[in-house]
């Protein structure tokens, strides 16, 4: 049994791990040969050393700051996104009024809007949360809205003949089949949150991994910059996997097998 588990693990992740190892080795070798200057592309070992040297600052201050922005932004995005998606599903006029606005909100280049955010919220946590929210709430709205329409008219008619109210129809036959689509939206949103927080910190701030990476890039301390980028990416992956886990648990509990 153990053998077969490690074998499936190797089959699923082996090619990926091999590619990463080969790339890292090639990268390290190129840096060792000094094919590119270290301030343009530092060696993986140098990045690791920088990560270790700066670990108190990175893990003690900047990572918690970014994590706070990401989580606050995500909770807001998820709550507002689900509420808006459900509202648009239940009230057609709301859908007709809001859908174009939502799409427009996604075509605005955030970077161009950021000076305004700074004027509104200052260099506080909330200016970053606002950027996070604007990048991350859209997939939740679309995931919720599209998911709720999946169950179709036939279930709705059946429930109506059983004397169900609109809210009962929503709860009993529309929310369960919407869950996979909702979770797809949440997964996308989570990844966007990390990107949004980084952009927010780039635009103005004094803490966070995005801020740190920008400052280090300005000082040509590429290894430190890459260390922060590596942490940001790891943060995104871990948070993404957390949503995947949550999805698995909830879908299994609700009897929706995939």
């Amino acid at each position, binding site marked *: 049994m153990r053998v077969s588990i490690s074998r499936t693990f190797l089959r699923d992740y082996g090619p990926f791990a091999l590619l990463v190892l080969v790339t890292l080795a090639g990268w390290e070798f190129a840096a060792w040969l000094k094919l590119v200057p270290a301030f343009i592309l530092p060696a993986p070992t140098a990045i690791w050393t920088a990560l270790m040297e700066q670990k108190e600052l990175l893990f003690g201050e900047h990572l918690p700051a970014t994590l706070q922005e990401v989580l606050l932004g995500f909770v807001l995005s998820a709550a507002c996104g689900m509420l808006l998606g459900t509202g648009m599903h239940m009230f057609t006029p709301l859908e007709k009024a809001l859908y174009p606005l939502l799409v427009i909100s996604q075509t605005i280049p955030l970077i161009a809007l950021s000076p305004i955010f700074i004027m509104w919220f200052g260099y506080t946590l909330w200016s970053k949360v606002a950027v996070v929210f604007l990048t991350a709430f859209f997939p939740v709205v679309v995931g919720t809205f599209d998911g709720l329409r999946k169950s179709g008219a*036939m279930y709705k*008619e059946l429930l109506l003949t059983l*004397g*169900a109210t609109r809210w009962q129809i929503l709860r*009993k036959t529309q929310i369960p089949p919407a869950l996979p689509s909702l979770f797809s939206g949440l997964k996308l949103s989570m990844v966007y949150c990390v990107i949004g927080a980084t952009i927010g910190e780039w635009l103005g701030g004094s803490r966070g991994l995005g801020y740190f990476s920008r400052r280090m890039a300005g000082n040509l301390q590429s290894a430190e910059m890459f260390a922060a980028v590596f942490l940001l990416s790891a943060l995104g992956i871990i948070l993404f996997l957390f949503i995947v886990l949550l999805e698995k648990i909830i879908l299994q509990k609700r*009897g929706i097998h995939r």
Partner: protein
Amino acid sequence: MNVRRGEFISIVGASGCGKSTLFKIIAGLLRHTGGELKVHGMISDDPSSRLGQVAYMPQQDLLLPWRTVMDNCLLPWELKRKGSKAVAVKNIREMLDRFGLEGTERLYPQELSGGMRQRIAMLRTLAAGNELMLLDEPFGALDAITKRELHRWLLELWSSLKQTVLFITHDLEEALLLSDRIYLMSGGSGGVQEFSVDIPRPRHYRMNYEPKFIALRENLERRLHESIY
């Protein structure tokens, strides 16, 4: 057209003549554009007043795939919350036994055969506890062997259920075997024709080889043909 308490009435007619539309009107999903509709002798003009009063079972079983058989059957109770859950569960267990579905209550619909799913959908329809049941081609999507098996099952079970049933079908043998009366529907302004099935009850599925049954079938088929052309 009229339906008396306890009757089993079939409706046959060409595709697209409005049988399903008629059902949706009776169930309260659609508003009628002409004529008059009476429930218990009272004119019923507002379709929403009929919602929840008439049980309706479409051709697809429409079982919720994320719920077990028991939870699917509990759906009508969940929506109305009449009486305690324990009583509802007990009733459904008894009905599962009577329907030949014992041991399935924890299974999911995907794990069952088409015939079993259809029986569960019918059980759910019955569990709604309405006097009138509208069955829109409930066996239409099943293969011939399963269909025959369900006829046999329904004939054995039906007399004890004391339900009033309107039944849409394209299968004339099915209509004759199950019904007290048959309405032939034709599209447009053709209206409906009544056809009585004077075969004594209790009926048996082997009756469809008797000369009387065959004569009735011939007669019905001719009248259906005339009503279309």
